[in-house]
């Protein structure tokens, strides 16, 4: 289960990344067409806004796995490790609740558009349920990731394996955060980084 969610989340980054690149090329070509051939498509802005919503929704779970959702941890750091472990779980539970609210009420949004067959008031007349459906599926993946992570963290904590729980729901210290930025820049700069 955990593996499946992880792989889906990784897949989500490809969905999001590809959408963004596609939008970048689409927007660029639209501007070029408008500028040099006087052809105004006026579709790219609308499509890019859908891409944003979908890419974000599909990305939420990847950010859960990498513990990238920001937390204000200055106070929690002062707590003894045993209590802090449960605070971490509480934080994850709250994130799960948030994800649940998004899925439950996102469904209403999608469902209404579907029932009324609503269309965007744009030249494309996009049936709005299509992007909303893709967005909602991403939210579902977000909820699944949160729930699975939460369950594992509780299990590890009760089973006396705090380190593994920490790796799932613990606060990423700023040092760790900077570390990933650094290792990336090292990798990128390659031979010049002495």
């Amino acid at each position, binding site marked *: 289960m955990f593996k499946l969610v992880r792989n889906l989340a990784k897949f989500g980054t490809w969905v999001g*990344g590809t959408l*963004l690149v596609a939008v970048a090329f689409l927007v660029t070509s639209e501007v070029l067409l408008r500028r040099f051939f006087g052809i105004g498509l006026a579709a790219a802005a609308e499509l*890019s806004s859908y891409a944003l919503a979908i890419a974000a929704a599909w990305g939420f779970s990847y950010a859960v796995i990498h513990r990238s959702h920001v*937390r204000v941890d200055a106070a929690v750091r002062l707590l003894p490790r045993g209590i802090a472990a449960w605070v971490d779980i509480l934080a994850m539970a709250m994130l799960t609740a948030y994800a649940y*609210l998004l899925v439950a009420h996102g469904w209403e949004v999608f469902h209404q558009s579907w029932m009324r067959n609503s269309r965007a008031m744009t030249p494309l007349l996009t049936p709005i349920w299509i992007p909303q459906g893709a967005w909602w599926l991403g939210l579902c993946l977000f909820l699944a990731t949160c729930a699975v992570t939460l369950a594992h963290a509780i299990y590890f904590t009760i089973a006396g394996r705090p380190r593994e729980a920490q790796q799932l729901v613990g606060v990423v210290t700023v040092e760790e955060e900077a570390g990933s*930025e*650094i290792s990336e*820049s090292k990798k990128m700069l390659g031979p010049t980084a002495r």
Partner: protein
Amino acid sequence: MIGSSLAILIAVLASSIPVGAALVMFGLLLGWIHSPFPLVRAIGETSWGASSEVLIVAVPMFILMGELMLRSGVASRMYDAMIKWFSWLPGGLMHSNICACTLFAATSGSSAATAATISTVSLPEMRRFGYNPSLFMGSLAAGGTLGILIPPSINMVVYGVLTSTSIPELYLAGFIPGFLLASLFMLTVLIACLAKPEWGGRSVEVSWSERFRALPSLLPPLALFLLVVGTIYAGVATPTEAASFGVVATMALALANGRLSISVLRDAFEGTIRSMAMILLIFVGAFFLNFVISTIGLSRQITNLIAYLQLSPLETMIAIVIFYLILGCFMETMAMMITTIPIIEPIVRSMGYDPVWFGVIVIILVEAAMITPPVGVNLYIVHGIRRDGSLNQVIFGALPFVVAMIVLIAILIAYPDLALWLPQLWKEMR
């Protein structure tokens, strides 16, 4: 209502609940206490609205552009050229650091990316030429923050969306303060090195012909700058469209340098999605919270309270600056902006300040937050790249630059036109 609400918000945030979730839970609680209607139903519509906001599209575009740019091999050549041009000043390479950051900032919308890139190429030189590590690393951490003041800027896009302020005007307003801040940073280095010449390190001998031969390395960043910022003012593109050009051009640049591969794309995608998901989740939460706050009339109460306090505009501004300087020590900067701006900006506007001008002030405060401990991401980036020595060295080295930022804020309060002149000029020309 304000006091209890504020207390709850602080408690929720400090309990380390992820900021986006904290904002939503806080919103639900407020709605439950103060409204007869089930405001929770609005979550669906507000989240779809917030996450399909077309102006925000520029945010992931700039993040993706930065991720690709780091991998495209542009930075190291650029830094080399900067060394050749600026190392003769007292404080030598530290001026090159600041200038390289300034130029990189003009193509990058992110401060962390700027600091990481320039630090990686410059820290080895610190050892080679015997610089005082503290000041040298401070110049890198602080120089990196210029990434969001000099356009393009992710944070300005977010500010623009949160306050319905024109993003092109915000960009223009950032130019003069941005270069002024870079100059203040250089002045800081200059003063430090005139007072303590031993901090300055050994100088690098460079001939004029070498300097001119290094100039072509500056072309790719300048071209990118014209593409992602210039096109907006040439009337060719909106800020979102310009950001998309940036992605296409950086991909082309990486391809030309032979750095574009599946693994590079994968790393760039993962980095981008992680950052944008983090930002968007908070953004969605904040949208819902703002809906609740205005529905239950809390925003009006806040404005009334401020009016009741009868502070002068200047006193209010000083209070706001101090508030952000303190909050910035403890909170991640993007989360801090999205959480506070929707509440603070209307107050500032009601006092007669220009929202574009305030945008610049906020960005400088965010920059200060990036180099003040304990949560100052640029400090950790520079420290992490150096690997040895203590973090305190970076913290102390960055302090004089925080002072430079506060000086700049004071200058901008005294002479708001430094920020507002360019946007005004542009509006008149159109």
